[in-house]
């Protein structure tokens, strides 16, 4: 059986049209529930459901717009999501006057730099900026303020916020840096596959939990998570991921396997961040998205699944015949020929046999640039 895979543009249009169609159905169900069950009266569960669906409309339209703009749009969108998520995280975290400078560094240096590194395809620095440089520099900044009260705890919290809200989330647009042979020009749909699969898992866990949830998983962490919700949600969204295999460089069984992995990770992302919320005595991270809570409530699952998904996709590319640099991510050297030279092509590129096509630029063996 041969399935003709639509071109990248058509794929995006198809996917967003399908999402809009699903939302129409969801809105209709919401209206029907309000009419049949609540008889137009206020009902907290149904009102929350309708608020959630309306918020989904806004989110899907925002995503459609940014994907229409292209790579820059998606990078800026995730930079904004990271910014807002970090705001929510640090806002409910205990810090002191001594952390003021470290926080400024986080918001106005490390966050923009991380996304700028994606825009310039500088994978080498992207991967270690926050785990290495920020990890070492931020506590130095805090220690210089000579306030030792709960020092380790404060330093750890700032680093955690930066890892969860900036580093992990930035792996979604980092998919755009990937250089997968035979998949060029289709990286946007890889990012969309990740977001759709993980968010479907969240939504299906909610629906299955509401429909037939009985056994609470861990009431002390999250009162709404049930075993039925988890199993039903993860299986449903794994099926969705498998059905969307044609958007990815994977075979159907590979797509199903990777969907299962990221759905489980997404579940535990929400689980871990719920534990932090409970420790702080909070129900939601914020109030930005009507019905959902804060932005961090919406992307907690994404932040746990994105790094693993990106790295898996990158490693998969290695098995092709073309040598890869940095686990399949485009090496910085590809930028050399676009006139933003920072360093010479790496030895891996120089040792490459034959030709290679990257973003329309043909690399020749022993290519000498700038």
């Amino acid at each position, binding site marked *: 059986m041969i399935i003709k895979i639509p071109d990248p543009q058509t794929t995006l249009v198809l996917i967003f049209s399908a999402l809009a169609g699903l939302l129409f159905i969801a809105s209709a169900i919401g209206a029907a529930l309000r009419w049949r069950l609540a008889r137009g009266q206020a009902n907290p569960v149904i009102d929350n459901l309708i608020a959630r669906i309306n918020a989904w409309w806004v989110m899907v339209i925002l995503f459609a717009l940014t994907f229409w703009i292209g790579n820059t749009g998606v990078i800026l969108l995730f930079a904004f999501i990271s*910014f807002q998520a970090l*705001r*929510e995280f*640090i*806002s*409910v975290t*205990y*810090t*002191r*006057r001594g952390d*003021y400078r470290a*926080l*400024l560094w986080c*918001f*106005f240096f490390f966050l923009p730099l991380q996304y700028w590194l994606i825009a310039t395809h500088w994978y080498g620095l992207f991967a270690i900026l926050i785990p290495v440089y920020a990890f070492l520099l931020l506590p130095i900044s805090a220690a210089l303020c000579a306030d030792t009260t709960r020092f380790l705890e404060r330093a750890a919290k700032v680093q955690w916020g930066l890892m969860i809200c900036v580093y992990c989330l930035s792996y979604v647009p980092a998919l755009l840096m990937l250089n997968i042979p035979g998949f060029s020009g289709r990286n946007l749909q890889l990012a969309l596959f990740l977001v759709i699969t993980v968010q479907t898992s969240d939504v299906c866990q909610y629906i299955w939990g509401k429909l037939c949830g009985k056994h609470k998983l861990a009431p002390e962490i999250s009162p709404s998570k049930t075993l039925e919700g988890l199993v039903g949600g993860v299986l449903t969204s794994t099926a969705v991921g498998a059905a969307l295999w044609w958007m990815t460089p994977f075979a159907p069984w590979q797509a199903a396997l990777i969907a299962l992995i990221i759905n489980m990770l997404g579940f535990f992302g929400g689980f871990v961040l719920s534990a932090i919320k409970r420790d*702080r*005595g909070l129900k939601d991270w*914020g*109030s*930005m998205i009507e019905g959902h809570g804060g932005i961090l409530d919406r992307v907690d699952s994404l932040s746990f699944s994105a790094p693993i998904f990106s790295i898996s996709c990158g490693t998969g590319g290695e098995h092709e015949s073309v040598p890869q640099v940095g686990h399949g991510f485009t090496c910085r050297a590809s930028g050399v020929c676009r006139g933003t030279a920072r360093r010479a092509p790496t030895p891996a590129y120089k040792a490459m046999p034959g030709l290679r096509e990257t973003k329309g630029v043909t690399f020749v063996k022993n290519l000498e640039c700038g």
Partner: protein
Amino acid sequence: MLEKLLASAFCRAIKLMTGVRALWRENQPKAQPTVYFANHRSHGDFLLIWACLPSALRARTRPVAAADYWLRGAFRHYLIERVFRGVLLDRHIKRGDDPIAVMGAPLLAGESLILFPEGTRNQEDGLLPFKSGIHHLAEAHPQTEFVPVWIENLGRAMPKGGLIPVPLLCSLTFGAPLTLLPDERRADFLARCRTALLALAALSD
């Protein structure tokens, strides 16, 4: 006209920067002379409370501010006198000064006040001991309601001595109003106000 534009521009700016949420617990804003008293960590404190009041009340609410800070420089002077319509107090009381009468005049005219009973910006957690002015004011105006307002996070976002604000999300919690009880002693009233304000703190650390 220009003053009104400036005032609404300041309110919009601080609301946008702090993403502030105003939580009215146990009571709703009332159009009667009220003293809003709050914890004080940042220069933006009074502006945030002022911005979060409904606009009809905001026009009739005046922040109590330190004369020595606000009268330095022509622009600051203009801002506090014409835009925010502050009630200016000299922190170093000289003979013949009557700060209670200065603060009482707007209350008698049916206006409300924003007051920081700690007297200065607190750089640590919690609350400093209250100055006795709030009690003198309550004695002179026993009908006035005193509403505690806990400001969360603005002190971290714009600390004393910091030039660039950290973009943290702030919240304001308005508590139930207090009035001076008959025969209530100064220490008791101050303690009651302080406890009511601390009880609103969103997060305990």
